[in-house]
């Protein structure tokens, strides 16, 4: 297997952002999986017009991700998923306005039947063929097993750091892992200083993806005396796959990945989406949070529509934050302040 550094120099990045795309599957095809967290700075990348130029009615996360992904100098291909309409339309625009190969992966919205699991597994096969057409290698069983194992171990290592890092730093650690597939060893000790002080108020996060700039949210909460004890956003541990079933990796790798990703990650787009409610309720109970922060992007219908259901399902207060692309504005900061005041 190429080291990430060698592969990157050859422009082998397969960029995606959805947690339902198994990085190890792309790596097993000899390419570099790069789970991109949109920077969220200017929301358009490179020179010339970005493929997603419209702002009104368009999810800023999707817009930022697509514009940044296609303008990454090392991009070889982009993988999007069908879990929301906005991403599906984003794929249309990549295909219309750029030459970057785009793979639109069907991630079923329904779960629980063998047919949809088989559909997801078949999509993995199709993703593999996409990688091969871009110069990737066919999967060799031995290499596949070692890559899957490596990812599984690294994932556990990064998750184990949760208790030693502040929420913001842990989010950045997860981002690093998403991009590099490994833990950031060298900085680990330094990052550990971010733990909150005793007497802070435990809160949890739930919601869609965050841009790298929006990780500041965690710091703002910390400034107000919060300890973020779980990150149920798409950028947090909620969107991590389950442990791989090592006993079955050899004979049924796509089946194992289907179990760990498609069947294990709870998300709001799923129908019914009781899984994400169960995840949150368990997290709230086990971590004894006093409040939940619900983050969503403007024009993201699937998260937006559920805000009130989450509120109703909780016995603790919920703060609904709508993000509109840029940094947090003063109004959001003030609402956070008032929310934290109420939790004390």
């Amino acid at each position, binding site marked *: 297997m190429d080291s990430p550094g060698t592969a990157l120099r050859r422009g082998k990045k397969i960029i995606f952002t959805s947690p339902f795309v198994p990085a190890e599957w792309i790596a097993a095809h000899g390419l570099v999986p790069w789970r991109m967290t949109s920077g969220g700075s200017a929301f358009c990348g490179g020179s010339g017009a970005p493929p997603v130029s419209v702002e009104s*009615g*368009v999810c800023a996360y999707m817009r930022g991700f697509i514009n940044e992904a296609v303008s990454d100098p090392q991009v070889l291909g982009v993988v999007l998923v069908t879990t929301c309409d906005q991403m599906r339309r984003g794929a249309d625009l990549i295909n219309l306005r750029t030459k970057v190969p785009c793979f639109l992966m069907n991630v079923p919205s329904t779960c629980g039947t063998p047919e949809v699991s088989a559909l997801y597994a078949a999509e993995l096969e199709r993703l593999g063929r996409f990688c091969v057409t871009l110069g990737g290698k066919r999967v060799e069983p031995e290499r596949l097993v070692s890559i899957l194992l490596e990812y599984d171990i690294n994932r556990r290592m990064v998750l184990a750091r949760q208790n030693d890092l502040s929420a913001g730093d842990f989010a950045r650690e997860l981002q690093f892992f998403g991009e590099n597939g490994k833990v950031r060893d060298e900085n680990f000790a330094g990052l550990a200083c971010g733990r909150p002080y005793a007497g802070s108020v435990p809160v949890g996060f739930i919601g869609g993806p965050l841009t790298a700039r929006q990780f500041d949210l965690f710091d703002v909460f910390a400034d107000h005396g919060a300890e973020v004890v779980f990150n149920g956003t798409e950028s947090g541990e909620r969107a991590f796959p389950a442990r791989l079933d090592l006993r079955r990796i050899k004979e049924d790798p796509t089946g194992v990945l289907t179990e760990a990703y498609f069947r294990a990650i709870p998300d709001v787009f799923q129908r019914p989406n009781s899984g994400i409610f169960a995840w949150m309720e368990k997290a709230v109970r086990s971590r004894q949070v006093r409040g939940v922060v619900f983050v969503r992007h*403007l024009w993201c219908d699937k998260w937006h*529509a559920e805000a009130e259901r989450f509120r109703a399902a909780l016995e603790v207060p919920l703060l609904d934050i709508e993000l509109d692309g840029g940094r947090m504005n003063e109004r959001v900061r003030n609402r956070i302040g008032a929310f934290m005041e109420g939790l004390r």
Partner: protein
Amino acid sequence: MSLCLAERALGPVAVPRQITLEEWDEAYERAGSLEPRDAGYGGLLGRHVRSGNTRLARLQFDNSFAALKLWNFLLTEEDRLRQARLAGKTLIGAMKDLGTVPVIACAYPDLVAFYPDGAWWLPCLLEDNAGLLAIADRLGVDESFCPVRAMLGAFVSGEHFPRPDLLVCSVGATCDDFSAIAQRVEGLGHPVLWWELPQRREPEPGEKAALLPGGARAGAGQVAFVQAELARVITGFTMQCNVKLTDRMLAASIHQANKVRSCLAELRRAVFTAGLAPLPALELLVAEMLALHYCSDRAETLVVLEELLATVRERTGRGVGFHGRDAVRVFWVNPVADLKAMNLLEECGGRICGTDYLFTHALDQIPDDIPPLEALARVALADPMAGTAQERAQRIQRDMRAFGSEALIISRIPGASHCALEGEVIREIVTAAGNCPVLEIEVPSVCDPLQGTLRTRLEALVETVRNQRKER
């Protein structure tokens, strides 16, 4: 009494005109019992205004009896559903797939399907005086969602359709608004049978291709998958009504559905290609909507459409119609949240010659030379929403050529998850292909406050086409 006799008795009806609801009611009362074949839903249009559909009072209607019947049929669906419930039928609330599930439901003797999605039009028809949007607002589903949020309000108020015995909803390659709101409906205690409609894709190397109605293709594996999903829907129906569905029953239902679809296809062709528009845009839009679920009475739908077609043929034969021969021939993309916009286009000098109201798959013929469930799987996959905007644009271009459309209007639906980007793709492709003016507008559920702006933009489009004609 025959249509012609009735028209003679009413005098002005023989000359195609657009009239107000008041004029219709006056004419109707003058004519007394002259309404042709009353199937139990005829009568004054004004009664629908009194029951809350106040928007009707601001529309212009075709003055034919066929159109009157069409409107009365459309606006009495709720009565039919309540009667069906009283008669012991099982009510199926089909959601989102637009056109496929009702064909299955109609194959059963005692199932009646309707689309709660139809509440999409209620903010327009009722001018939101039933407060459905306010209910949705209270549930946190605000105006950043498309008008289908009125469906949530309707489920809560329980006033616009009876509670279905079973809800069936397609998800996957569908819009976010609907999927989100259907989940909220389920959260209110209405269990939903969800079935998966994947994003349509080209066949993989080595995979057999399946041709879909409307010309798109999909991998055979996808067709088999959707077929299995529809089989789950059938299992759900069978459990509801204890009747086992056979291929023969399903094939017979497809045969009947195709009769409706061919009649509608002929109606559209006749209207779009006539020198003078023999039917206004508004009535044709309503006629197209009947193909989705037959307003809960498929046999009567066919009667209504056949009468419209007869009227259109009769008018074309006499060389009479609407809007003058120089009316600009417009292809319209997406349904309008406010029906009034259809009148407005005509007032500005346009006429409709081609449509894609997001349910072209409900208009195309269902294949009848393959196993019936496979045929329906192909129909479901042909949904324009399940494919790319590029494919949708290609079909639009093809239909524009077939119908001689001179301009394209992309009507954006406020809050709809697909509109902003899909409109971009369609506009770019159609513009790149030739000298066809494209206009993107947004039409809210009640467009009165924007009417001035909309009028100016529509008039400018009409002017552009007329100038292009001169240059040719």
